[in-house]
């Protein structure tokens, strides 16, 4: 165990309207076993004692599953180690390092304060079609429909998305294709998702476009930044499903 001394370059912005800027802070005596957010806690405790406003950032579960934490570290959302920021540990850094900390940036994610952004747009995409429209209490027995294990596993892999928005923040075009396609793939793969498949795909893509996200240019930056290993195979599947959905809607083939 060792202690680190670091220089932080942090984006500070009082609110959505204010002018933002990078400010420099010293983080001293940081245990290398601490998590990245605990490092910020230590810095913030120091700031509060000096009577200064602490650095605001989103965080909640601190075990890598809620998807609330959202820092862009040295230009890469979550720091690019295939974990969420809260699971990033200081042993990944060296004594004397300078670390740039910025919010998740995209026009569709308006900044709220410092490092906090509003990711409601992702909820809106789900509301457009990321569900199976069944009523509570109307479900048949769970074992009535057998599902191939590989299919179920693939659906799970897509469903593992935590909705953090790192895909959007890392994308050079701020596209939400990985997020949208992961939810679409999760439901489109399963037999339960079939009745609404075309409707879902068309609605989710339309909503995604309307919210001002960019367009995918197949650079796969999202996949590399994703803390949950969601693959761009889902994007390929969404493209495929979208073509099929458009074709069958246009021609009137309802399989």
């Amino acid at each position, binding site marked *: 165990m060792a202690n680190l001394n670091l220089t932080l370059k942090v984006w500070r912005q009082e609110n959505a309207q204010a002018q933002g800027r990078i400010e420099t802070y010293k983080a001293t005596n940081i245990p290398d076993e601490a998590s990245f957010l605990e490092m910020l806690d230590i810095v913030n405790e120091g700031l509060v004692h000096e009577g200064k406003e602490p650095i605001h950032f989103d965080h909640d579960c601190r075990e890598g599953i809620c998807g609330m934490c959202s820092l862009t570290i040295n230009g890469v959302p979550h720091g690019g180690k295939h974990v969420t920021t809260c699971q990033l540990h200081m042993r990944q850094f060296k004594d004397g390092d300078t670390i740039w900390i910025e919010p998740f940036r995209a026009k569709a994610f308006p900044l709220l304060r410092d490092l906090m952004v509003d990711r409601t747009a992702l909820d809106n995409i789900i509301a457009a079609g990321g569900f199976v429209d069944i009523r509570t209490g109307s479900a048949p027995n769970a074992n009535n429909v057998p599902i191939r294990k590989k299919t179920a596993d693939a659906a799970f892999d897509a469903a593992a998305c935590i909705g953090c928005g790192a895909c959007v923040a890392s994308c050079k075009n*701020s596209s939400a*294709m990985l997020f949208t396609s992961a939810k679409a793939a999760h439901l489109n793969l399963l037999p339960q998702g079939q009745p609404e498949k075309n409707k879902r795909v068309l609605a989710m893509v339309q909503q995604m476009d309307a919210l*001002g996200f960019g367009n995918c240019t197949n650079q796969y930056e999202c996949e590399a930044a994703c803390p949950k290993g969601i693959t761009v195979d889902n994007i390929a599947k*969404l493209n495929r499903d979208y*073509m099929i959905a458009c074709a069958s809607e246009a021609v009137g083939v309802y399989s």
Partner: protein
Amino acid sequence: MNDIITTACKFVTSSIGRKILVALTGMCLLLFLVGHLAGNMTIFGGLSPEGGTSWIDSYATGLHSMPAWLLWAIRLGLLAILLVHVGLTLILKYENYTARTHYQMEGTLKATLASRTMVLTGVMIFAFLGFHLWQLTFNGDPHDCYHHILAAFQNPWCSAFYIVAICCLFMHVRHGVQSIFQTLGLNTRKIRPLYNIIAILFGVVVCGLFISIPVCVLTGILH
């Protein structure tokens, strides 16, 4: 009928629909490239021994001997495909630019240089295309293509421009080819490395062969 039109309109205004059109037009342009390359390779047939027409001249006159309406239909078709490809790309690019807020410290994990410079290389190729058409198509003589090409490439500036443009084409194709599979939904994690190999091989072979012409002219192999 209404359904078809409404769906088509939605398709061509949606992000995925337009990407698919870019991919499909890109694919057509790649096919053209292959055809064009095959024609160009006739230059290595050299002049026929009897001092008659060269291989490439016969190819060129052959092309010109097809009915004018067909020739122009192909030309206009290609132009339309090109304009759709370029136009849609520029619109998408503009949208992407406005969708993004920039970082003070930019970081990149995986995006290749080729993928990040698609518009730049595309513009280079487009500019080159204009020059290329002006120099060899509109100011050329189909009956003496061979010497015209030789003359053009003996100018080192002209060759250099050609080579740089083809390098841009390589970059463009390297990202474009594998991107087509992804956009058309034919990609999976298992097969992705294969697409990358196809993209690079395609780029190397096609661009290598294109570049071989000015290189051979400059080194005197073709004379």
